[in-house]
Structure formats: C-alpha cells, structure tokens
C-alpha cells in the first residue's frame, strides 16, 4: 500500500475540517460567546463553553474593546491615556453632555511618556509635539460626546453582547435624539435580554425625558414616560438581583469590589431598585411599592433610601 506523504495528509485534514466547518461553527451564534472588557472573567466562564466560539469570539470581543479605547481618545481630544475610564465616568449623571468639563483623572499616565521618563531623547520630543499630548499631571479636558457615537455603533455591530457599548452610547445619544437613544438601547435589550443594565438605562432615559416636559401642560405624557421607566427599573432590579451573587456582601471601600460584582453594577442595581419603588409609589400602587421596597431591602440592606421609602409607605 502506498504511503501518504505529509502534504497529502495536511490536505486531507484541511478538507475534513472544511467539510466539518458547518458543524464546528454552528455554535458561533452571538449568544454562544460573550467576552470583553465589559464583562468579568466569572461571567465569561459561565457563558462561554464552546472552544471554537471562544477563539473566534475573542477576535470580535477584541475589536469592540479596541473601539472602546478609541472612544476614550475621542473624549480626551485625541490624547492617548492609559485606558482608565469606567462606565460611570462616561455617563455623567444628569448632564446633557460633558463638553469642557474637567474630571479628576489628572495623573493618569499617557501612552507617550513624559520628558523625564522617555528614553528616546529628541524622538520623544518630536513625538510629544506631533501627537495630541498633554502632561499627565494636567486635568483632563473632556470633549463633546457626540463624536463618540459612531464608535459605539461600530462596537455593538462588532459584538452585539457589548452591553457597555449600548448603555454608554444611548446615554450620549439621549442628549441629541432621545427617540434614537431608545431605539438603540432597545436593540441592546433584544441582543442581551438578561443584562439588567440595559433595562436600567432604558428606564433612565425615559425618566430623564420627563425633566424636559412641562408638568402642567404635559402631565399625561410625563405619567406615561414614568410608568415606562418604572417597568424597566423593576425589570432591571429583578434581573440584577438574580445576577448578583447570593453570598455577596457590600464591601467597606470601593477598592474591595471584585470583578465578579463591581461597584458599577451595585450602583445600577440600587438605582434601579430605588427608582422603581419611587415611581411605583408616585404613579402606581402604594401597596405594591411597599411590597417592592421590602423585597429589595432583604437583598440590599442596609439601604437608607429604601428604608425611608418603607417608613413613608408603611401604614
């Protein structure tokens, strides 16, 4: 019998893999892989089981992470700082946009080193002059968020499970076109039906919209928006409590938070619970509001806001 040459074996192996590819890649649906900087390692280990999906999914995730870094550069006038922004930095509470605002990240190193730490002499001098660069000790200047939006669109196209892309993108977008923001975050819900933070953000957008309206002339519309917000806050709180580890206890300092359940998630969960109860109290049923507050407090205690709400509602 004629012995096969190595090249023939490789060819046969490649052919077999090619023919088997429909089966091997059948688990590459978006829901089969979820990774990236927007999720912690614990979450990833639960979601990802397919080796092939992990390999190829990492490429998609990396693309989204790189795009996310790009948004940080756009926000900092093109200056390449070491990535340092978390979601809460990118969604300044209740502000329409952050143009001209200075944050407190002074001291975050730039990727191009300072004169004191640069080994490159004149090349380093030219590099700092040519590229957008400021001394890292200077306060950061944030630009208008509008120009970031194309990147949020791209990162969610690249990875529809990139929850952070949906939440931050829709937050920026709501200041320009609330309807488009709602459309965008609803797309996020469609792609991530179990992620509590997308419901929370949708609730926030509805809630923020009421601030633009005149309570006397547009009372009915305010009520409708608040009811929509309440429903999303309640859903977010329910999903968030399911996602929160059972034995989790609030750490004493922010540094003690872990990847498994970070500070941003905890803040969002508490925000959803508090706002859900508040809006149920104002626009729904007081008894139901009390019931929700007590239910949430069992998991979230101690929580001064929920405790006060219970005091108000309790007969």
């Amino acid at each position, binding site marked *: 019998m004629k012995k096969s040459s190595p090249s023939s074996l490789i060819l046969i192996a490649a052919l077999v893999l090619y023919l088997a590819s429909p089966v091997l890649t059948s688990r590459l649906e978006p829901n089969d892989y979820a990774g990236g900087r927007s999720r912690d390692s614990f979450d990833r280990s639960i979601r990802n089981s397919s080796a092939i999906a992990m390999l190829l999914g990492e490429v998609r995730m990396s693309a989204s992470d790189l795009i996310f870094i790009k948004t940080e550069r*756009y926000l900092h*006038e*093109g200056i390449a700082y070491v990535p340092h922004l978390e979601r809460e930095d990118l969604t300044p509470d209740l502000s329409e946009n952050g143009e001209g605002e200075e944050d407190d990240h002074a001291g975050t190193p730039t*990727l*191009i*080193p300072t004169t004191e730490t*640069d*080994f*490159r002499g*004149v*090349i380093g001098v*030219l*590099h700092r*002059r*040519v*590229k*957008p660069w400021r001394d890292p000790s200077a306060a950061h*200047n944030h*630009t208008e968020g*509008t*120009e970031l*939006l*194309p*990147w949020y*669109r791209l990162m969610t196209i690249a990875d529809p499970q990139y929850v952070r892309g949906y939440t931050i993108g829709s937050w920026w*977008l709501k200041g*320009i*076109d609330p309807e*488009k923001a709602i459309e*965008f975050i609803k797309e996020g819900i469609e792609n991530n039906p179990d992620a509590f933070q997308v419901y929370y953000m949708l609730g926030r957008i509805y809630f923020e919209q009421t601030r633009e309206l005149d309570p006397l002339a547009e009372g009915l519309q305010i009520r409708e928006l608040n009811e929509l917000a309440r429903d999303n806050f309640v859903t977010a709180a329910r999903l968030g409590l399911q996602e929160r580890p059972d034995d989790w206890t609030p750490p004493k300092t922010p540094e003690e938070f872990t990847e498994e359940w970070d500070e941003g998630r905890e803040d969002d969960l508490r925000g959803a619970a508090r706002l859900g109860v508040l809006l149920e109290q104002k626009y729904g049923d007081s008894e139901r509001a009390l019931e929700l507050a007590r239910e949430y407090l069992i998991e979230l205690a101690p929580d001064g806001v929920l405790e006060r709400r219970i005091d108000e509602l309790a007969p």
Partner: protein
Amino acid sequence: MPLKLWLIARSVLIEAIRRREVYAIVLVSTLLIISIMGIDFFGLKELTKFYRESALKVMSIATGLTVVVLAARQLPREFEMRTIYTLMARPISRTTFLAGKLFGVMLAAAFCFLLFTLVYLVGTLYLGGDIPWVLFAQHVYLQLLTMLILASLSFWLSMMLNLDAAITIGSLFFLLAAMFTNVSMYIYDYADAFGRFVIKIGTFIIPQLTLLDLSERTTHAQSWSALDFTTMAMLTGYALIFAAAYFALAMLWFRKREL
C-alpha cells in the same frame, strides 16, 4: 542633468498613470471613503471626526502601498526587460538615473495624494466640517516625506532582494511602523540592560514613521493648532536623513550590480 533627471522622472510618472494602477487604487479607496461617509450613525449629520480619521487612514495606506509597489519594481523591471542597458549606454550617470526614478515615484505619490485630497476635502465640506487648512497642508507635506523614505527604502530593498520580498518587507515596514514605536515605548521599562540597548538602537536607526503622521492631530483639529516652524524643520531634517541614507544604500547596491 536636471533635464535628464526630469525626463526619467516624467517617464516613471507617465508609466504609472498610463498603467492605470494609480486610478484603480484611488477609485477603490474613494469608494471606501464614500462608503464611510454613507454609514448611518443614528441619522446624525456632521459627525466629521470619524470620517476624517477613517479617510486620512485610507489615504495614507493606499498611497503608501502604491509607493512601495511602484518604487520596488522600477529597477528590477529595467533589468528584466534589459532597458537598463540602453539607458546606461547614454550619457546618464547612475546617480541621475536613480534620482530621476525617485523623483518620478514621488510625482506619482503626489498625484495620488492630490486626487485623495480632493475627495477628502469634498467629503469634509459635504459633511459640514471645518478644514484646518494649515494643519492639513502640514499633514500632506509630512506624508510626502514618509513616501520619500518608503520609496528610497524600496529601491534599496529591490536591489538587495527579489521583487516580491522587497514589496512584502516594504509594505510590512510601512504598516507596522506605528506598532513598532508603541511597542518599543511599552516594553522598554520591562526589558533588561541588553534589551534596552537593542530597543534604543532600533529606535534611532529605524525611521519612526509615526512622527510624520499628523492624522490624529488633524482629526481633533478643534483642540490642536498647526505645528511651529522649528518642529516642521526638525521633522523635515529627520525624514531627509533616512531618505538620503536609504538612497545611498540603494545607490551602493546599484553600483555593485554588473551591467
């Protein structure tokens, strides 16, 4: 000599235009730029930074690759088609011949950039963005200096290696230049004494093409002004040193080649 140099340069430019490769590259890149303009980002208009950044990158990559391919095949083809013997039989020095070829490639690069610039400017104005004229002119000028380095490097590579290898190495050098700069900055702190020495040497003997790239500054032009004269002069000197060095190396190899 200037007339001879011009005649050689003109023949390179005419050939580049006649072969329609430049048009094909510009056309494909223009379609790419137009498709970038056409992406619907939530129905928002005047999102010019994304367009600017993407268009400038496409322009730079397309022109860079055109220059590498065009420059790398100039000399091997003269040898292959034996036209070099006819040319060298005339009273033309090898230096004039090579300088003419380089000038011709640079004219083709400038022509390519001119077409791209028109597309870029029309696109920016269509999207309602401002054009930072001085900064943009500086960007184009520095990009042409990048092309000068690439063209002279490609001449040298094409004399040392075969055509395919010259094009591959030239392209990789161009495409990975920024990565090399970033990686060397990053790993320097983690390297041992010998590693640091190698990184330092590499940083100074390999042209840092990222220094000649003002695309980020141009993209975020609202926050950054044009470069001052001293910096532009330093960058020009920096680029010319490398272009001259590669040209000299190409000349050395060209002289060693027997006709």
